[in-house]
């Protein structure tokens, strides 16, 4: 789901700025390898979010000693993340309720 990927990217970028590969590694880590997305589909999402102004890219030097884009969250991105996060939690709660499962 597009929204999901955007959320994860925003979450991952909350603290540090990372390049594409770094972001994909973090997502794997955070989601305990549960999300089996094609890694490549990360990039269209990144570009789209950059266009919308949720994240911005800066040039830096990667561990491979090559020029690479490092992404970071903008103020607008932070706001978007907070509101989306609330929505998600609510939705998850509701879903859990319907499925007869309590959420801690």
């Amino acid at each position, binding site marked *: 789901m597009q929204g999901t990927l955007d959320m994860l990217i925003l979450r991952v970028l909350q603290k540090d700025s990372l390049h594409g590969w770094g972001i994909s590694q973090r997502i794997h880590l955070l989601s305990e390898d549960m999300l089996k997305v094609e890694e490549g589909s990360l*990039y269209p999402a990144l570009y789209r979010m950059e266009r919308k102004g949720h994240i911005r890219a800066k040039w830096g030097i990667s561990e491979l000693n090559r020029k690479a884009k490092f992404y970071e969250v903008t103020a607008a991105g932070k706001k978007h993340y907070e509101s989306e996060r609330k929505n998600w939690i609510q939705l998850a709660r509701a879903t859990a309720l319907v499925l007869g499962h309590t959420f801690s």
Partner: protein
Amino acid sequence: MAFIKDLLNRLAYLFKGSRLDDEMKDEIQHHIDFQKNKNIAAGMSEKEARLAALRRFGNVERIKEECRESWGTRAFENCIRDSRLAFRSLIQRQTSTLVSLVTLALGIGVVTAAFSVANAILLKPLPYEDPDKLVMVWNTNPNEGRTLEQQSKGARSMSVQEFVDWRDKSDVFERLAVFQSWFGFVESDENPEQFFGYRVSAGFFDLVGVQPFLGRGFVEEEQVRGGPAAIILQYDFWRKRFNSDPSVVGTTMQLRAGPTRIVGVMPPEFVFSSRQIKALFPFPFTEADLNRSRELRYLRVVGRIEPGLSSEQAQARANVFADHMAEEYPQSNAGWKPVLVPVAENSAGELMPAMKVLLGAVFCVLLIMCANIANLLLVQASSRKQDLAVRSALGASRWAIVRGMLAESLILSSAGAVLGLAVAYGLVAYFQTLLPDRYSWGTSLVQAEAVGVDATVIAFAAAAGIGSGLFFGLLPALQVTGKSFAQSLNDVSRGALGNRRGQRTRNSLVIVEVALSVVMVFGAGLLVRSFLTLNAQGSGIYSDDVLSMQVGMPRHIVDQIEAETATKTEIDERRVAARLSFETALASEIRRIPGVKDVTVASERLMTGWYFLWEVEAEGRTAASETETTEVIRSRVQPNYFDLIGIPLLRGRAFTEYDRPNTRPVAVINRQAALSLFGSDDVVGKRFRLKSRPGRDPSSWYEIIGVCGDIREDGLHMPAKPYVYFSKKQTEFYGSGWYYVATEGDPYRLTPAIERAVRAAAPGTIIYRPRSLDDLERDSTWQLNYATLLLGGLALLALFLATLGVYSVLAVSVRERTREIGLRMALGAQRDWVLGLFLKQGVSLVGRGVLIGGALALVFAQVLGSLLYGVGPFDIPTLAGVGLTLVAAGAFASVLPVLRASRVEPMQALRNE
């Protein structure tokens, strides 16, 4: 905000273009290399590590494509590609592009110009604050036989005392002011000028809600008789006479009336009642004014309705107040009723119906134009069908193909709109030259003179362009890419009977075109017939090449008399004598100019609809006609007047040099006056006099020595007015002299020479408003002329477009059916049959259009009612003529295609694949 930022980012990406693409590829490579390194570290071989990394990444090419999508520049890129393709294809099809462009430029041009007229007259708000609340207040009395129309000619409206009552005691108006026409005369040797202005009473500027943009309005002491003389200039006058010099405000202007201080300049958009108004003067009431009879109704009144009152409520309250006034002053006010006319209506009144028709016609022509181009594009589209089908087969979506075709038509229509706007500019400039030089008494001229290409008009042209582009582009695009699209690959190569569905669409478009043009040509036909009737009937003046103008008597003559003489009667006598000798001298001076045949001087100007009415009574018939009064126009003329102007003498004689102050008072009256006074035109020898007016005795009895022909003074379309003529020598009093100069050939050619002669004879004076009698006659029906020209032009365009439409449909039909014709001829069909086939098609198209259009025309022609003269809106002969014209045009349009069809060689046609 977010949306705009998004859009800006997209545009930025568009310009970064290929660099962005390279960066993206780099970034993906970087990712894969990272993964590969990680895999190698985990113990894979170089090759294994790379493949695993790629697998993990997914379909690289597809992801690259998705990335490009995500920049959001696709729409723009498509747009650019579509327009590039469209340009190429338009240039390729030179002929049809050119035809469409010319049609569009003409169509949008004419339509925009016509719209600019309707815009100025119907839509543009008047240049006042809250103009809907402003009303003209007319006073009518059915018993006096006055119609509102006569009232609005400015004959009479309110007396000073009535005005004061309305202003101070009624509860209808927030403010009320009067205005009156007034002349200004700049005395100057190098640049004398006479101009028309209004005197306006206190509070006028607050009433209209417009203040001078330089200087100030009139102050209280200027609104008192004997106070400092002041003038406020209209913007145009200021610009022309003072070169827009702001420092003239506060300086003094030398007017004939005395030195006058310029206190302000009105803003450029301000116009009140007439654009001829060059300046405003204060309008002080004196004690004498206030004590004048309540029946001297000569003020024109404008008011602002109390806030919160609707115009109906205001009218109702005004009626109640008028009843009160009638009770209080039964003698002067019984029967008088106020009529409140919104200023906007008052000014557009006469042209209102014509403008509504014009707006309708504008949209008709737009529709016809669109239908025509749609047809042309349909034809093209059907011949491009194969090409489009191939594109579709190669994977172009229907939307992509429609988009491509729309791009073409939008480019066409935008170019057409730009060219059309240029055409409109030219036409509007031309319209301006058609306007009459006429005092307009608060009628539509004000707005007609405001006709111009402004933002609304440009917006209209743009909307017309884009709207028509969408309309004529979408129709063929959807039609061609319709259901049967996939089959068309086969269709074309098999070349069966023409495409029936396309044919049907095109036919209905043409029928609509023909129907609409029938409506328009019918409307224009009625107007043209009215125009011809009026001009055939004429005004009653039978002369060519007469120039009319006014020349005032130089001030110094009057000053000298006043300085030398003591008593008022003596001054008057000497002034009259001075005037007569000045006129005689000037006339003989002008007569000496080569090319001048003769000169005559009269007290009144002809054919301007501007006159004062005098009540007259016939001797011996006074008692019988107490209730009905005869009102006449009075003119003092010289003996050669009737000859020179060309007014036929029906009975008796004209004046001679011997009709002088000390001889028997004589008069020549026109037939209308004779009938109205005596019920017969055999009246030579009978007598009449001017009735007494409040505060004035009746005149002496005048013996009628001749009866002359009538003149339609109010305009060719109005009934003739009763006229009485006195001998200038016998009855001369104050008054301005109108000179009529009969010339050889174009009268205006002599204007400079006459001007020189006048200046030489009387330094410091000028000739005012020189205008030929022919022009004055033409101007008297300018509303009809204007409407005829506009609608006529639009109708001709419609006719032309409809003919073109019929032609193109038939031409295509012939082309599509060439093989069929060949086949039929091969099987034995005669050429006559082929000819008949297409002629029948053409005639049936036009015939159906004419039938529908004829019915519509009869419904819509009623709107023209008030503009027509001597012909009704249900005029069947005109309608029949229009129908025949259309059928003839249709037949003409069919000639070429039909001939082409009949020349088809069967063998060639069949091989022709």
